């Protein structure tokens, strides 16, 4: 089976300093692939290139066989690529419901004139969008706060809000950048469950996460970055035993955790 998302020799430099260098791997439909590595390894930068926010200085990205390198993010959304952000990017003044409704933007467009005049086409789309946004909020356990402004919510709640908003696009592939970072144990548990559920629904996931127990449990495949380079790739158990990976990232403690998780 051919890959859904192909990363081919991707690299970028900022003012002469190489942040990501010649990284290649692939994600197949419905599969969870995790990218791990120490802070500053280039994981977020990689996500920013894939999602069209940064223009790579080398390499290609392909989605369903079509080249999408440096394509405008809003066009990538149309092709079924969606993401969340490590450092929250929510619409603070909007309600949680409206935040998720923005994820329906591509489906609910009716035209400026229609929106100004409040024509039935616009109103009907708003109603339908609100309905399915409410269902998504329920899925992440935030339906009770649907009408509160996002800026009044806790960090953990906003992390889940971003997932709901990203799902509103009905993506084929979802990029999650440290979805459980900064969350307490209960919230992390909740997010783990959510990720597994999304994957079961057939959405491919590219995940950056430091919680090794989670990563080892749910990933089909790991990619390890260090100083912008891919230093290892493969099945979780294989990667966890790689001496280079242990030295760069996992350390002795991490490896114990990993072996423990394998049970």
């Amino acid at each position, binding site marked *: 089976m051919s890959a859904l998302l192909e990363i081919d020799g991707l690299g970028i430099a900022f003012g002469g300093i190489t942040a990501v260098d010649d990284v290649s791997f692939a994600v197949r439909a419905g599969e969870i692939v995790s990218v791990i590595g120490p802070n500053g390894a280039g994981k977020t930068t990689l996500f920013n290139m894939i*999602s*069209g*926010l940064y223009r790579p200085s080398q390499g290609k990205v392909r989605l369903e066989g079509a080249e999408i390198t440096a394509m*405008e*993010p*809003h066009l*990538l*959304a*149309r092709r079924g690529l*969606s*993401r969340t*952000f490590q450092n929250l*990017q*929510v*619409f*603070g*003044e*909007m309600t949680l419901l*409206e*935040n998720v*409704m*923005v*994820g329906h*933007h*591509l489906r*609910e*467009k*009716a*035209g*400026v004139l*229609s*929106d*100004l*005049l*409040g024509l039935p086409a*616009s*109103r009907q*789309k*708003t109603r339908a*969008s609100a309905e399915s946004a409410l269902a998504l909020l329920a899925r992440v356990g935030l339906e009770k706060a649907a009408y*509160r*402004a996002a800026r*009044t919510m806790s960090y953990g709640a906003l992390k889940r809000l971003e997932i709901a*908003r990203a799902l*509103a*696009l009905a993506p084929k592939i979802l990029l999650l950048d440290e979805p459980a970072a900064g969350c307490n144990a209960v919230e992390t548990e909740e997010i783990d469950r959510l990720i597994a559920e999304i994957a079961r629904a057939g959405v491919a996931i590219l995940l950056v996460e430091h919680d090794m127990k989670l990563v080892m449990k749910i990933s089909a495949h790991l990619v390890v970055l260090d100083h912008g380079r891919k230093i290892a790739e493969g099945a979780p158990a294989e990667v966890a035993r790689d001496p280079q990976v242990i030295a760069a990232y996992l350390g002795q403690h991490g490896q114990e955790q990993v072996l423990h998780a394998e049970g």
Partner: protein
Amino acid sequence: MKPKHLSLLVLTLLVVAAPFFFPSGFYYRIGALIFINAIAVTGLVILIGYAGQISLGHAGFAGIGAYACALAPEHLGLPPVAAILLGTALSAALAWLVGKPILRLHGYYLGVATLGLGILISMVLSNEAQWTGGPDGIAVPDLGLRGLLRDLGWRIGAGELWYGLAGTVMILGAWLALNLFDSPTGRALRALHGSEVAARTMGIDVARHKLHAFVVSAVYASVSGSLLALMNRLITPDVAGFMHSVQMVTMAVLGGVGSVLGAIFGATILTALPQLLTVFHQYEHMVLGLVMILVMIFLPDGLLPSLMKRLRGRDGE
């Protein structure tokens, strides 16, 4: 009742009830002036409040609307109502052409670029004296509505007529802006205001939506300028000047640029005070500056939203 309907009801009641408290007929003109300013400010609520994009040159579009009403009847033989529409079409076209390149700029840079646009328009209006009458201004033909009503047997004073007309257009403008707020386009604008990066990844064509907001707000400013010209029957390049742009933004910010009702409230205060207090009139520019500074320091949400928050208690979400 939905907030939109409540806002419109309050607005309509205020417009209808205010004349009962007018000490003299002079107040109809002040009222009409308030409404005319409020129309432009409502446009800025869409641009600044919804989309988060600044403009320091929107008086330029008011200038285009105003001079269209002075020039099109004379040179093109258009009736004044058609001249208003021509003005909005020109303003929209210019906003679209200029907006494309400059809306890529952010923050101060966009402020300076729109400032330049406004100055350019007002300089053209001042310098092309053979067409525009130059700095002394130019006479504007009668709208003809009063004559029409008289022929239909309804005698109404000019002040009353302009009060009713401008009030109606303002309520209409508020209705459109409130519709937009809770629509797909309105949500897209507010989203790109909150986080441009997230808006883009959610499928929003940010450049296109900013442009829409810019064009729509230019149309509001243009209509406001047209009504001002037709009411005063005389127009000078000041209508397009920098001070007028600053006045619009200050009104919006004072009342609360995120809310239509708030912005109209701001327009009311800053229009009425200089008219009613001559001292204020003399130092209008200084007071505008002072208001701007004080609002930014003490009431960053604007007067009305801050008051509402106080009334509802701290966390009245």
